[in-house]
């Protein structure tokens, strides 16, 4: 054999041998065919089988009745069966920005959070999250560089379980190789309520705490059903547009195959940008052609309704747009995270956008709704100033504060 062939054969053998060891490292699982009963009615049950007892209480502040039996398995959103070995005390989130806020909603605290994505951190610092949990500012983020996870830096934080995007197979494999439990989550989806429900449910399963998750999921689905029922009675489809970004010469709208489609269609309206896929750059002329009656500006951009009302943006003329003429331009509120995406505030987002677009059909007192919701699910009483911050987020929220 030539020298090259010898080296190649040696390397190949080493690789094969080591993969055998990795393969054997998985623990044994005892499969008990007990499925958790979901006492919440009218729900789409997730295909999560938990082999172990779980509590059936739905009140968020009741203590669990029986301790969980470890180990048990859950199905994550990457099609994997994940083994839960213990009650985790060190948790990290490497991708999927709204997750830390969801995690807080599900577990009630961030004591066990040891690391998160820097974009989540800057979003937290600009939203209600930092007010609810001031310690969020101290959670380390340096293991993420340019949205890539540096496994060794992450290991320094000693996490026991890491939640990441289900498509990052390299990361998941690396985590498994390092002996860290990895849980993959999905971000594709047009139904933010159900996507949030899936996240909350999965996090709850993994952390062995499902009470709060169940409660918020039930509330979200209740709101969705309520809105859908009313929407059935609406016959005039109003033309609504989500202005995703408008600054520095960039003009983007949120089309279909994105959460925007759900927010708009569920309340009985029509997304003028439905022919656009995801987030796309459009010209002012296109917006003039659509002539939306309602415009919602996301908190991903500095742009505020005043910029449109006063026609301050160079190269754009909003004065003839119906939404501007009728005064129906609104900035998305900023609660525990940006309301455009799936969050634990999604029930509120649905009610809010419904009440803005069709006030004659949806008669929600949004201030009361938000106050009550935050008291019930986050255990926090919002002051008037804080409530104002939720409904009038500053432009700084769009920026990624380092």
């Amino acid at each position: 054999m030539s020298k090259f062939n010898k080296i190649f054969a040696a390397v190949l053998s080493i690789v094969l041998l080591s993969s055998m060891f990795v393969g054997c490292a998985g623990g044994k699982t005892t499969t008990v065919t007990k499925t958790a009963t979901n006492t919440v009615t009218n729900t789409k049950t997730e295909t999560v089988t938990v082999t172990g007892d779980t509590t059936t209480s739905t009140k968020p502040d009741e203590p669990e009745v029986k301790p969980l039996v470890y180990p048990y398995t859950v199905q994550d959103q990457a099609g994997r069966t994940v083994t839960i070995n213990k009650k985790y005390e060190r948790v990290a989130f490497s991708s999927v920005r709204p997750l830390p806020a969801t995690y807080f909603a599900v577990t009630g605290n961030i004591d066990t959070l040891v690391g998160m994505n820097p974009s989540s951190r800057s979003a937290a610092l600009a939203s209600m999250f930092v007010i609810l949990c001031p310690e969020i500012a101290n959670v380390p983020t340096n293991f993420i560089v340019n949205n890539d996870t540096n496994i060794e830096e992450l290991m320094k934080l000693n996490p026991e379980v890491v939640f990441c995007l289900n498509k990052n197979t390299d990361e998941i494999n690396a985590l498994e190789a390092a002996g860290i439990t990895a849980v993959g989550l999905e971000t594709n989806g047009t139904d933010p309520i159900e996507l949030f429900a899936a996240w909350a449910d999965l996090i709850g399963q993994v952390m062995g705490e499902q009470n709060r998750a169940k409660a918020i999921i039930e509330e979200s689905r209740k709101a969705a059903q309520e809105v859908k029922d009313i929407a059935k009675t609406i016959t005039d489809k109003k033309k609504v547009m989500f202005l995703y970004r408008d600054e520095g010469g960039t003009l983007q709208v949120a089309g279909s195959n994105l959460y925007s489609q759900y927010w708009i269609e569920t309340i009985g309206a029509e997304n003028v940008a439905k022919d656009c896929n995801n987030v796309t750059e459009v010209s002012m002329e296109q917006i003039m052609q659509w002539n939306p009656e309602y415009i919602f500006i996301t908190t991903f951009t500095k742009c505020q309704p005043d910029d449109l009302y006063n026609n301050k943006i160079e190269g754009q003329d909003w004065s003839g747009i119906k939404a501007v003429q009728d005064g129906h331009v609104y900035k998305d509120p900023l609660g525990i995270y940006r309301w455009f995406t799936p969050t634990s505030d999604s029930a509120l987002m649905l009610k809010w956008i419904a009440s803005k677009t069709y006030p004659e059909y949806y008669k929600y007192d949004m201030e009361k709704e938000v106050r009550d919701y935050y008291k019930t699910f986050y255990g926090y009483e919002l002051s008037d100033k804080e409530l104002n911050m939720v409904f009038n987020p500053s432009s700084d929220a769009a920026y990624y504060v380092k």
Partner: protein
Amino acid sequence: MNTDISVNNVKKDFKIAWWKKAVLIALPLLVFLLSFCCGRFQVAPNTVIEILWDNFMGLFGIAPTGNYSAFQESAVMALRFPRIILGLLVGAGLAISGAALQGMFGNPLVSPQVLGVSSGAGFGAALAILLVENLFLTQISAVIMGLVAVAVTFMVSKVGKGKASIYTLVLAGTITSAFFEALISAIKFTADPFSKLPTITYWLMGSLANRSFADVWHSAPLIIIGIIVLVIFRWRINILSLDEDEAKAMGVNLKLSRFIVVLCCSVITAATVSVCGIVGWIGLVIPHICRSIVGPNHKDLIPACIAVGGAYLMIIDAIARTVSASEIPLSILTAIIGAPFFAYLLKKSGGQWK
């Protein structure tokens, strides 16, 4: 040997056919006017004419007479007009730069990107988008870094006793381009992947979306001055394409001439990048098209490039903003149309370029 050739006939022989001249003048004008009718917002052609007429008459203080909404007027005058002007200027500027550089280097594969201007300007713009998100600063940054890149190319190309030959200039340009492209990649790497990175990427692909008259005032003077100088200088570019010794023997100050040509092309290219990003395949292909129409003499080639290049980009931008709800980046269209057309030209000419 026939020595009876009348010189008058000779000069006539070399004049471009009258019909070709007519087409070259009419084409950009026609495209200019037709472009006003293209866009996502429906405005009927006769309404467009009314709007244009009223605005034209308005220059002389005559009151408008047409029947159209302020909205329609806004679409035509505030949204389309700046884009059409910029399309004309950018297309003409890039085409003329490509022709001049191809002439100067005596190489048909040269484009305005050869000296690193586009990469430098792209870097300047990306840097500005990363640090501040202000359109005017982005444009200034692009122009400055574009010119810095050319200066770097010149410095790198000086080998030996301070002589920059054509070959070292091209090599230095390649090095500079690669360097600034690497810097652009570094910026993309550090940019926030959810907001800045998509903005930078989209911007680098070239677009005239949301351009206003302010952008026209920012870039037009640079482009127009560059074009005027190159037009005045156009016949001399023939001499620059010869060997160094031959060119010098014609009494041309080679160093100064090359400097002027490069400066004009760089200023024009940097200004175009500042206002609409990097648009390729114009500086490369349009000169070849024009050569097949008017011949390789730069006396005729340069003006032809203005007409054809300007018309071309106006058409491309009309497509970019009309064909779909989402704006299509310009460089995608110029590449999709330009590359196959270039292949066709190659086959037709049998490899004979100049």
